[in-house]
């Protein structure tokens, strides 16, 4: 049983790493700044959740898993605030978002 859980944890961690690489590929492919923010939020959500969940499965229930949950909560609470601050200050810095009609 513990072997099975370890294999599951391994796949979650690999999935999170792949999600991070996909998000960075998206950052490179997107045409303007605001669409790049969407690709970056994949790194912050799917990558973080998958990797931390995989490590949670691997560690079991102890003090380490409580710290892992705290890390996930911090990242999930602070990254939207940072993304919103980036978008707002880019808008104030005269960076117009590219809309659908003007492609």
């Amino acid at each position: 049983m513990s072997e099975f859980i370890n294999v599951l944890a391994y796949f979650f961690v690999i999935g999170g790493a792949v999600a991070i690489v996909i998000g960075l590929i998206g950052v490179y492919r997107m045409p303007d700044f605001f669409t790049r923010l969407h690709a970056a939020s994949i790194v912050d959500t799917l990558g973080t959740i998958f990797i931390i969940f995989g490590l949670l499965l691997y560690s079991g229930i102890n003090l380490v898993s409580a710290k892992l949950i705290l890390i996930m909560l911090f990242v999930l609470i602070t990254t939207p605030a940072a993304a919103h601050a980036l978008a707002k200050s880019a808008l104030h810095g005269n960076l117009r978002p590219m809309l659908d009609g003007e492609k």
Partner: protein
Amino acid sequence: MFELATGLILFAMLLALVLAIIGKTVYDKILAVNIFGTVTVLFIALYGFLTQRPDFLDIALVYALINFVATIAILKFFEYGDMGRSSHINEEADI
């Protein structure tokens, strides 16, 4: 057991660093540094498990907080020109 995932994350960190160098506007560069910080938090956590020393999680926790504060501070600097002023223009909150 986590070697492959750690390698992928190191590759992602390299991509983020290149983006921070070639980014056209300052916001692209800040976004790249923000991504780099998030990925670094995950890398530190994974590295602790890779070397069987979960004490590294404390460092990851502190790094997550510092990353957020750094992003907000740099954005405030570029929006208002200096760090000391309050975000409200009308309030003269200078020292």
